[in-house]
Structures are given as C-alpha cells and as structure tokens.
C-alpha cells in the first residue's frame, strides 16, 4: 500500500479510493505531494476526482475500449519498454497458427462452441516446436491433463485458481522471435487485435473526448520506463461485470508493455472491501478451491489422485507450481493426519467432488428449487448485499433451516416477518416454514486471529475482552459444531462418515477454554512430521514434501509461523523501519511485499535505474538483495540458463521473473486460463442502452446467463423496448457505511452521518424527468422498483455516445428493508439481475438499465403491477438478453441455464 507513494502517475479506475479506502488514500496523496499525476476514471465525480489532477467520466462497462486504446497508443507510438517486454513478457512467443482473433470472426475467438456457449481453448495455445498439431508434446498451451473445455473450467470457476500464479502448462519449451516481427508472435497479434481501438472509438463508446484520452495516454506513457513508474488502482468497479476479469487483464497488458510490473510505484493495486476478503480467498470459503488456490476436484476430471496431481501442476512446467503435489499432500496430511498415507493416496478420496458451478447464485437458485435444506450465514447479509435481493429472500423462504451468525438482527435474519415480500403480499410469515437460528457473533476485539489485508499481509489482532452474553467467535462455534457432529456420528460404520471421524479436530484450549487460534495458525503454516525436526514448524513452502513427511493447511501461508513465532503479530513500529516495513505483519508468499520483484532489475540483474532501485543481484555475495524479500531463487544468477526442457523452479532462467507462470514470463496473451478469450475484447454489459460499436456480438459470448421468469432483462442497444429502461444505473459505496450495512446501519454514529438511501442524478436528467432535489424518485429495472431520495448533482455527467445523450444514475447500496436497524430503506441490489463473468462467476452489478420517475413507489400488489407493466411494455421475455450469440443470422436462442 505504502508503495503507491513511489509512483509517478496513478490511474484510479473502477474505484472511489478516497471515499471507500480513505486511509490507504494517504499514499496517493503522498505521491501527489512528490509530484505524481493522479487520474480518476469513473462514471461519478467523487472525492477521489476532487483530489486528482483530472477526472475522466466514463460510461459504466466500457473500460476495455479505453484501456485497449491505451494499448494501441503504446504500440503505435513505440512507447513500450522494449528490453522489459522482450525479456520478461511473452511478446516474442509464437502462437498456434490456427488461432483466429475477434477481428477475424466479428467478436468471437476461434474455438467458440455454439452448443455449449463457451470456448474450447486449444487454438489459443503457444506454437509447437516441432510444427505439429497441439496434441504433440511440443505444445504448452493446452491444459496439462487433457484439453479441458471452457464450459467445464467455467463451472468450476477455474479462474479463481490463479490467485497465486498462472495455469499449468505441459512443459516450458516455446518458440520465440525476439525481433517481434513474426506475424504469429504475441506482439503482432496484440497489434492487430487492438487496431480499431482508436481515440474516436473511445469517444463513441466510453463518452470520453479525444483530448481527455490523449491526456491519459500521455500521462501514463511519460511516467513509465526505466526512471519512472505508473500504478493502476481498481476495486469492484472492475470486477463486477460479465467480463470483469478481462478488465483487469487489459490493465495487466498495459502495465507489462510499459514495464511497470514487479517494480516500485508500479503494478495493479486491487482494493478489496472486507477485512479478510483476501484471506477468505487464500484460505477459501469458496466452492471451487482448496487452501492455497489448489483446485477442488471435479467428477470426471480428477477421479483419481494421479489425474488430480497431473492437472494442478505439471512437473515439466517452469516455476513453483510444478511442486503442487507437495502442497496438496501437505494439506491432506493436515486434515486427515495419520489416516492419510501413500497407500491410500493421502485420502484424496475423502474430498467431495464438483460437477458443475456451485457458486452462491447457483446455490440460491437451487434453494428456490427446494434442493438446499440448510444454510449458514456467517457475517453476510445476502437479502441486501447480493444481486437480486428478491431472489435471495424468496430462496431463503424455501429453506428447512437457516443459521444466521451476526452482530445484529440483519435483514437476512428477519425477512420472514418484515421483508419487502411480506409487504407486497408475495409471502406470508405463517407460510414460511424456515426454522431460523440467530446466534450472536463475537467482535474482533473479543477474539484473537489474523486478517489478511488487501496486499496479502496477515495481521494478528489480539483478544482484548471476553465476548458478552451468548456471543461466540466462528472459531468457537465451528469447533463446537464439529465436535458435536462427530459425536453424533461416533458409532457410525457408514463409509461416508469416515472423513469426518478421521478429521484432525483436536485444537488445544486457550486460557479461556476456547480453541487456540494460534494452534490453528500453526496447522495452516505446517510442520515437519518425521526425522530430527519432527514437530517443528516449516519455515518455507519449499520445505514441503510429497512423501507425507510434512503437513500444512495452506502452503502459501507457510512461513507465517516459522520457528514457532507468530509473524502475523510482528509489530515493529513503522517509524523504525523503511517504507517496505518487513517487520510489521507477514505477507504471503515468504513475507514478500511486491510480487515478481525480480523484474525491478534488468536481465543482467542491475536496477533499471537508481531512482527505481528495489531488488538487484549482488555479484560478490552471489545473491539477490534489496529492499524486499527477492521473489526469485535467492542464489540463481541472472546469467543462469537451464537445460532446455527442465521443469520446476530449476527450469527458470536467471531472467525469468514471473516465477509462478508456467513459462516464467508475464502474459500479454493468455494461451490458457481465461475462458472468454486470450485477449480482452470489448463487449457491452448484459443490459446496455448502447449497441456494441466494434462487433455484431453484443455481449460476452461466454458469460453465464440464467433464463428464468424471475430474472428478466431489459432489451439492449437498438432492440425494440430498450427505450423503456433508457438509463444506466451503477451501484457504489459510501465512506460511512459498510456493504449491506450489518456493521454500520446499527451504529448510531454512522447512521446519523448517512441516514437515508438516495440516488444521484445530473441536473439534465432531473430536468428531463422532473426530479426534484430532496424529493422522491422511483427507479424501475427489469426485476424490481425501489424508491430513493433524489440528489441532483453536477457530479453526474451526461455522456454523449454517437450523438445520443446517455444518463447514468448512481445508487449506494447499503440500505435494506427491515425493522431492526437504526436506518433502513430500499435496497439498490433489488434492481439487479443475475448474469455472471465466466472466469470467476461474479455478477454484473456495476452496469444495468433502468427508468427513473418522480415520486414514491407504490406499495403492496400495486408495486408488483408496476414492475410487470414495465416488463410488458419492454416486451421482455425469458430469452431477452440471454442469447449468447447475437448479430448473426445463424444464431439461435440459448435456452439452457448457466
């Protein structure tokens, strides 16, 4: 975070950092005081814009066009960092001759399967060294264990597995043309792909004029290179789209071309919104991954241990993912202890198998279908915070039992008596058969444990007081639940209960008799199990073995408990350290603060410049050294060249800085891993008043859609009925509230500061619709109608898109309908439908279509009639917006669910 102050230019896009991460913003302010240029690109003018050198308003969902144009500008004007690009990225790598671009296929890449609505990615692979097809061992682009189709990868949300490195490749032999002239090089493909992303296209798609684009392009390129670095900052304004992962990929291409990755003041900073949302991804409470980004096994793909190990990290690929078997065995040993042996494949058979997408939205729909009996809510309020609040509440009404663990009586705990569906008459309290348990939770001051903050740093918080009344930590509750479940099954002879009964579940008690959080951290870190060091903590994940002699619950966290010391609790004051502050907390992996920092030195190991010196090769010591923990094999010389074909960390050359990538290079072009294309391409949001100006293909053809009567969409572009919902709405957060309000709307201080739900509209839109500042407005989408106070403000800029004015409406989403909070109000997320990014199954909540009219919404049945009347006027059917292929005469409606 502090490293932002080293930047010479900072582009904040898809984030309102000054208001949503205000304390981190001090580092942007520091950079600016030192002369850095700060540019804020956002639909709204906010406090971030007010403190930036320039605010550039953008139409929500059009970011790939703007960043794609930046790529074109860099390539056309030869402003890329040539030595960095040739040595450290895959620009010179040759791609399969069969690859076809969206420019060739009007918005599709080669390999699209109309039947499945997803891609077979084989043609995106790197070219093979023997000139044969991609089945030969010369191809590294194919999946390591067979050619897994995008449909299957999407269902297991395979994109999430790249949270700590790139996808597996079969081996590390590639063909390269370092002159970058071969038409099949990534570099030339990139040039052709973005050829039409011109400043004029930016004006016509994003609503950004040519001067503003040139300002951005100049600022970013003038502040990149040997002497200078530019940083990008984003938040959920980039992720919550049907091509959200590709927004971030586009920024990654810009940063690799400009040589800004792995260097001080560079990189792409993800600003996450919850205290341990990074931690809950690393040690995932997510369906598709195991701790440390190991895949959850999938039926049919990973039926045996051999299948699984081959798929997660091939021994012949470069880098540290080649050791994935040691990480997986250590995890299974941590969970099943002595019961996990080489003979029984470490109890790999104890892991449940996926057979499709089982994300939170698919689970919600399964609840509606009566397939889910019990649901735990652990500090989360989906009735307000998830997309399509109506669907969430109606789904919970179908459960047999629900456990809500929270501080306060959130709307998800009380929907059965005071939810909007009770008010509208759709549900009745006595008709809801759900049994609800409310269990009060302990606060951060009432328990010890670690949060992992947004830059991968674990920080321990110490228990200050005892939890009051019945309040319990999740550690207490789940330890106790596990104990009781095991007790109930203790006499079972059923084979299905073995994984629970064999589970290691014996944590020592702390001084209060509760499970000791530090003992859990020690298990996560891992131990030696045999030999002289038996029982001692591991110091680094490189010590993990695949022979059962080590355990460890999350390999990327190994080292946090090195030598038996809780390094998450390291607290040497910042003022006694340099800016990197390695002795405050502990960052994974290996306490490294900037990833891929080998790239901060040139191929010979010398700093690119004195000004941007960070990690370098110390010839005398024969080691890498500098201001951070080097992200490289510590004694591998820059001149080192492995025998061709060597796999694993030994296969990395002395100038391969991207040590978690299977070829050691930063990927401009992703031969594998992205399910909606190897290069980011602009598609319109699921709902958009604008037709895609680049391709007949309107929206991401690989997105996940759910054609259902309770999930109708507005027609888009020039489809009839699109004018019924003529405006764009986008949701956001305020400084004074926290997501769905569970930790803020019950606090009098914060409720007083932001008491009421409101919508932001421009004076022009207010005049057009007769909206009065301080009055009421009703906002109608294809799913719901809600009411909000009107704030008329010039902070909202009407954008001119190809001669037509597009208005955007801003909606903070913190409020919900219920009787218990200090402040309540309609929930903006009720307006949203469910359509997902195929890589990570995240919903599109930053861009939707709506209408806005003056006055309060009707109540009771009249509210339902209003929504239905709009749907009927727009002619929306279950197929509206759900045809994956568009603009092609041969295209047929898609009738399957996601």
């Amino acid at each position, binding site marked *: 975070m*502090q490293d932002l102050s080293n930047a010479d230019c900072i582009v904040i896009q898809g984030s309102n950092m000054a208001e949503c991460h205000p304390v981190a913003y001090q580092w942007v302010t520091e950079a600016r005081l030192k002369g850095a240029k700060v540019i804020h690109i956002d639909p709204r003018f906010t406090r971030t814009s007010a403190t930036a050198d320039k605010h550039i308003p953008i139409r929500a969902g059009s970011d790939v066009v703007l960043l794609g144009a930046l790529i074109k500008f860099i390539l056309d004007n030869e402003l890329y960092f040539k030595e960095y690009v040739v040595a450290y990225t895959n620009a010179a790598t040759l791609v399969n001759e069969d690859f076809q671009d969206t420019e060739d296929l009007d918005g599709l890449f080669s390999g699209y399967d109309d039947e499945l609505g997803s891609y077979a990615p084989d043609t995106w692979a790197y070219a093979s060294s023997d000139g044969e097809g991609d089945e030969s061992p010369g191809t590294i682009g194919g999946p390591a264990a067979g050619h897994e189709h995008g449909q299957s990868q999407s269902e297991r949300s395979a994109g999430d597995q790249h949270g700590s490195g790139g996808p597996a490749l079969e081996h590390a032999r590639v063909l390269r043309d370092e002159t970058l002239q071969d038409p099949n090089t990534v570099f030339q493909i990139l040039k052709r792909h973005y050829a039409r992303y011109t400043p004029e296209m930016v004006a016509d798609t994003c609503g950004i004029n040519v001067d503003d684009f040139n300002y951005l392009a100049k600022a970013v390129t003038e502040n990149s290179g040997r002497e200078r670095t530019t940083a990008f900052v984003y938040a959920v304004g980039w992720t919550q789209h049907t091509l959200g992962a590709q927004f971030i990929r586009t920024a990654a291409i810009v940063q690799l071309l400009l040589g800004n990755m792995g260097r001080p003041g560079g990189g792409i900073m993800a600003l996450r919104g919850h205290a341990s949302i990074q931690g809950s991804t690393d040690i995932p409470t997510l369906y598709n991954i195991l701790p440390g980004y190991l895949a959850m096994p999938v039926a049919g793909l990973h039926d045996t241990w051999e299948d699984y190990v081959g798929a997660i990290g091939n021994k012949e690929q470069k880098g540290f993912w080649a050791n994935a078997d040691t990480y997986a065995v250590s995890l299974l040993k941590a969970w099943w202890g002595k019961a996990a042996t080489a003979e029984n494949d470490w109890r790999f058979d104890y892991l449940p198998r996926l057979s499709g997408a089982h994300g939170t939205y698919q689970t919600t729909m399964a609840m509606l279908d009566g397939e889910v009996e019990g649901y735990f809510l652990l500090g989360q309020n989906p009735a307000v915070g998830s997309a399509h609040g109506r669907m969430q509440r109606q789904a919970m009404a179908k459960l047999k039992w629900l456990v809500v663990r929270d501080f306060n009586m959130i709307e998800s705990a009380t929907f059965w008596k005071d939810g909007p569906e009770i008010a509208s008459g759709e549900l009745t309290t006595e008709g809801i058969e759900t049994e609800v348990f409310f269990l009060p939770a302990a606060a951060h001051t009432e328990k010890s444990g670690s949060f992992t903050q947004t830059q991968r740093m674990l920080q321990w918080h110490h228990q200050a007081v005892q939890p009051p009344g019945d309040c319990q930590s999740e550690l207490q509750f789940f330890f106790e639940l596990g104990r009781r479940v095991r007790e109930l099954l203790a006499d079972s002879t059923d084979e299905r209960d073995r994984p629970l009964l064999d589970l290691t579940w014996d944590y020592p008690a702390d001084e209060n008799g509760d499970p000791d*959080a530090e003992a859990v951290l020690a298990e996560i870190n891992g131990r030696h199990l045999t030999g002289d060091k038996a029982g001692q903590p591991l110091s680094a994940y490189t010590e993990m073995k695949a022979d059962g002699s080590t355990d460890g619950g999350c390999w990327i966290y190994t080292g946090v408990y090195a030598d038996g010391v809780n390094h998450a609790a390291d607290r040497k004051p910042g003022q006694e350290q340099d800016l990197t502050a390695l002795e405050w907390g502990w960052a994974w992996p290996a306490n490294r603060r900037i990833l891929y920092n080998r790239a901060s030195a040139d191929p010979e190991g010398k700093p690119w410049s004195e000004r941007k010196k960070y990690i370098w090769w110390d010839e005398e010591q024969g080691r890498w050294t500098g201001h951070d923990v080097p992200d490289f094999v510590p004694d591998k010389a820059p001149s080192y060249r492995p025998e061709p074909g060597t796999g694993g960390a030994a296969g990395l050359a002395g100038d391969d800085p991207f040590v978690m990538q299977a070829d050691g290079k930063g990927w401009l072009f992703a031969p594998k891993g992205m399910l909606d294309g190897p290069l980011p391409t602009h598609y319109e949001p699921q709902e958009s008043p604008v037709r895609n100006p680049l391709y007949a293909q309107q929206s991401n053809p690989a997105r996940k859609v759910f054609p259902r009567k309770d999930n109708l969409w507005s027609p888009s572009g020039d489809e009839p009925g699109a004018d019924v919902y003529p405006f764009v709405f986008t949701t956001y957060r305020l400084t004074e509230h926290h997501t769905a309000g569970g930790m803020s709307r*019950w606090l009098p201080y914060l409720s007083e500061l932001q008491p009421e739900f409101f919508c932001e509209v421009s004076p022009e839109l207010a005049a057009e619709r007769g909206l009065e500042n301080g009055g009421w407005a009703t906002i109608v989408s294809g799913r719901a109608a809600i009411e909000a106070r009107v704030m008329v403000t010039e902070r909202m800029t009407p954008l001119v898109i190809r001669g037509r004015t597009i208005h955007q409406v801003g909606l903070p989403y913190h409020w919900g309908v219920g009787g218990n909070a200090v402040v309540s109000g309609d929930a903006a997320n009720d307006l949203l439908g469910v359509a997902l990014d195929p890589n990570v199954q995240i919903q599109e909540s930053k861009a939707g279509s709506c209408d806005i009219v003056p006055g309060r919404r009707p109540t009771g049945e009249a509210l339902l009639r209003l929504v239905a009347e709009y749907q009927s006027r727009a002619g929306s059917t279950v197929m509206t917006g759900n045809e994956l292929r568009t603009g092609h005469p041969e295209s047929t409606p898609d009738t399957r669910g996601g």
Partner: protein
Amino acid sequence: MDPKKTLLSWPVVRQLRSGDFLGRGPSVTSARTRGLEPRTSTADKVVQSVCPYCAVGCGQRVFVKDGRVVQIEGDPDSPVSRGRLCPKGSASEQLVNNPGRQRKALYRRPGGADWEPIELSTAVEMIAQRFVESRRRTWQDHDEHGRPLRRTMGIASLGGATLDNEENYLIKKLFTAAGAIQIENQARI
C-alpha cells in the same frame, strides 16, 4: 462571602493572570472539567488490533477498562495507516458496545410469528442434529456415470470475508470433510 474567593479569583483577573486573554481556556473551566481525563489515559490496558471493516488493514489500539472496551483509536505504529482511521474505523467502539447489538441466541420455529429465546447450547445441538439429518437425506455417493461425488448438496454457507483466517480454515475443513461444497463468501460478489 466565600473566603476562598478573593479579588484574584475575579474572572478578568484570572484571565489576565493565566494568559487566557480571550477567556476560552483554563480561566473558565469548572472543577468538573478540570477533573476530566481522557478514557485512553485511565484504561487498564491497551491491545493492538486491526480494523474490522475494509481490507486496508488499519492498525487499531483498543483501550480496555474493567473488562470493557472503552475506546478504539488508530495505531500510530502501523506503517500502513500511520494512526489514521476513517469514519467506520473510528466508530468501531460502537460496533462492539452498541446497545442494539444482539447478545442472546434466538429461535424462530417454522411458521412462527416471532423470535423465542433459546439456550445457546440447545441451539448448537439442534443445528448439529439438523446438519447430520440434512446431510444424510441429501447425500450423493456417485454421479450418473458411477464417478465418485461423495457430497451433499443440501447444506450451504455464505460468509467469511469478515472473519479470521483461522476461522475460515476451520469452516472449510469441517464442511469439506462433511461433503458440503456450496461454501461461499463475499469474494464471489
């Protein structure tokens, strides 16, 4: 006349003598004001913590007196936040102490019109029983091709982004061993 009140205690004289010429400082304080001390200086102990709201991870100092949190302030030692907190972080004492906070377990029976009190231990036992029963009813050994599934699709969970790593670890471990796979959190949203 109060013998302690002399000419010297006249307000104007007090102002002049103490250098408080505008009469807004010590010359006008009451005995009660003079006796006030900040909660931070009378605390029994100060505990280092981390803000529970967003992911910046600002350092907090938790001031405790008589087993109760009396104040939470920014930790100046933190190299990330350097002592600063935003409005949410500054309000976190109220997150802990707010009178509306639920401190008791509650139960709503199927079709019930309102909450009923329940013993925590009874509630946890009932949940454990329902967990085991739902798991049994919805168990899947194999898919239609005979490939192992070894799971239940009848139990789901949402939440974790506000919890500790150690808590997420136990949640994932227990649910995975039980065969429950629909375990999700805010990171998907």
